[in-house]
């Protein structure tokens, strides 16, 4: 008889109690020795996905690197809310230079550490989607191409939130932002070709690329931990809902992050040297409406006349992801 694998997800809430896990598997945040790298008291909004993602990611990296971490931050929400001097939330050496150069600054720190024989000090660059997929993209690609020993983390909240919710190249089609207004014949953001930076990172053949979500924090921690076991350029792209920019309730941050994954709009996967090696299957597939509806940035799709065609196009995007990454077990969902 086949052994039945123990399932943790028995409560219907998808939570995994730490007590059910082996100590080595427990969340970094469950440990009193956690470093609180991004400490409390910062000025992020209620329900900020980025603050949550950064806290988990950096603490996990600190554990993996024996607390020898330097972080280089792009301009953006994370930078602004964490360091309104004389306050700083960073308990680690941290530098902010410019909006578009976090990856290059990290290369510089890495080079300095190498030349000083301090290769035990690991370097993280981090920024939002604007600082990563738009203005910092040149420096990011350069760092990938040279395979510099830097972990770059993109906290993707799908627009320029710090400047007041303007469109970035990571803004999804149809989404309303301050520069893609919900007016006219095709309200919201255009249906472009998109700019999938995890796939572009993979095209550089770098040793490790992963997508992660603040709805799956254990998975996020594990991915950061795995990234830290590797030398060379690494990239983790974390979806971090923004209540303010998305027009959502602060208490819905985790729910929306989860729905983004369960609809197939934000596939979770890991890639090594340009090849996808692991994906996170969708256990409960949901239609995109469930994800779109609670967000005011998509409210114009659900007016008096539902924008059926637009919603269908978004559903197509989700379906394409599900096919491409084989996210749904077709035998179960046939």
């Amino acid at each position, binding site marked *: 008889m086949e052994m039945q694998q123990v399932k943790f997800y028995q409560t219907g809430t998808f939570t995994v109690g730490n007590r059910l896990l082996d100590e080595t598997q427990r969340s970094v945040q469950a440990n009193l020795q956690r470093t609180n790298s991004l400490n409390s008291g910062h000025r992020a909004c209620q329900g900020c996905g980025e603050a949550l993602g950064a806290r988990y990611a950096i603490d996990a990296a600190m554990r993996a690197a024996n607390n020898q971490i*330097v972080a280089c931050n792009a301009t953006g929400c994370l930078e602004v809310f964490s360091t309104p001097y004389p306050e700083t939330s960073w308990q680690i*050496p941290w530098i902010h230079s410019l909006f*578009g150069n976090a990856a290059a600054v990290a290369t*510089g720190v890495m080079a300095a550490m190498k030349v*000083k024989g301090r290769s035990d000090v690991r370097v993280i660059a981090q920024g939002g989607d604007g600082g990563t997929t738009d203005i910092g993209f040149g420096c990011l690609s350069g760092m990938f191409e040279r395979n510099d020993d830097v972990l770059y983390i993109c906290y993707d909240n799908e627009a320029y939130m710090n400047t007041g919710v303007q469109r970035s190249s990571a803004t999804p089609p149809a989404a309303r932002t301050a520069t893609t207004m919900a007016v006219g014949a095709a309200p919201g953001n255009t249906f472009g070709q998109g700019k999938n930076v995890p796939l572009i990172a993979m095209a550089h053949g770098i040793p490790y690329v992963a997508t992660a979500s603040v709805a799956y924090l254990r998975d996020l921690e594990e991915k950061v931990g795995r990234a830290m076991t590797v030398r060379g350029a690494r990239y983790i792209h974390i979806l971090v809902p923004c209540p303010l920019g998305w027009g959502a309730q602060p208490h819905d941050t985790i729910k929306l992050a989860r729905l983004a994954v369960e609809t197939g709009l934000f596939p979770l996967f890991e890639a090594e040297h340009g090849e996808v090696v692991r994906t996170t299957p969708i256990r409960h597939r949901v239609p995109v409406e469930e994800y779109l509806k609670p967000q005011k940035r998509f409210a114009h799709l659900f007016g008096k006349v539902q924008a059926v065609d637009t919603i269908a196009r978004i559903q197509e995007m989700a379906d394409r992801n599900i096919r491409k990454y084989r996210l749904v077990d077709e035998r179960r969902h046939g």
Partner: protein
Amino acid sequence: MLKQTEGSHAIAECVALCRPEVICAYPITPQTHIVEGLGEMVKTGELANCEFINVESEFAALSVAIGASAAGARTYTATASQGLLFMAEAVYNAAGLGLPIVMTIGNRAIGAPINIWNDHTDSMSMRDAGWIQLYAETNQEAADLHIQAFRLAEELSMPVMVCVDGFILTHAYERLDIPTQGQVDAYLPPFEPRQVLDPKEPVSIGAMVGPEAFMEVRYLAHHKQMRALDLIPQLSAEFRQVFGRDSGGLIRSYRAEDAKTIVVALGSVNGTIKDVIDELREEGVAIGAAAILSFRPFPSDELHEILSHAKRLVVIEKSLAVGIGGIVSHNLRMALSGISLHAYTVVAGLGGRAITKASLRGLFERALRDELEPLTFLDLNQTAIDRELEREKAQRRSGPSAENILRDLAAGGRSAL
């Protein structure tokens, strides 16, 4: 050691003797030979304990330098022209963060029209970015200034640009004295950063600073440069003790003591100016010169002193502030307080236009007769300009000016309007 070498290579050798730990390289004419030279030295092992990083843009070059310097490494890069503008945001940032990066500028014009030859428009555009700016007159000085620049940058925790005339210096071969490692080590102690990214003592660098402190931070940058006014001559004197020659300082005067006419300029053109002054002196003309070596900080007191007995000032500028005229001369106005003299601004040598002895002689003679306009463009081809103006008057779609002028010149002035 004396040797026949290219200016760029001498700079590379002197930078290497300063034991840089991180060098970022992105090619742009005319500085490219410098980083090529350094790259080779790192690759062969001649320059040990140094990371040489080929980056994808000048913006990345200076950004890598910012990271490296903040992590406590002695850091060097070089650029020119468009490259300096492309990294402009990082230029201000490096200064604002107080990072002692040394960067060579192989001075070159800025397009459009695209032009690879020498003038000072590039470094002048960054004169207020918070970097110290030193301008070399000769290749020996260019090489020597880099050694002084690391010392200056690190003592003040402030970045330094060493500006070297593109091609005229960077590509010229001449006999130069390259110091020994022992000499440089005696002059330049290891880098002790004021601030450093270190997990043992975590600091946040580059935080948001509001109205309550921003002015104070900016003032401190100015204060550092005022301290540099004392430090630069001191480092130049110490340099003389160790290396046995004069290099650097704030200004360098030439036959200026009794001069009624003083010519002020930056960089290599001072060599030609001195030759013309020698000729005129032989004819009994009381003319002298002052080369500005440190443009930032600006040596107002020293220039005031030299100009206080003069009747005439001729500023030769290799840059043009479009819409007003000269940049150096406007800075000089601050030093002229209380001095009454005829001041002439001469824009010369833009985009590599040769500044010849003959042209300078003619110019100085006109100045001596006080026949110069307050703003003069040296050796301007007025016919070519008039022709283009005429063309613009004749037709709305007159086409691109640069190409029109080149076509006119190629046709010897015979092309159709």
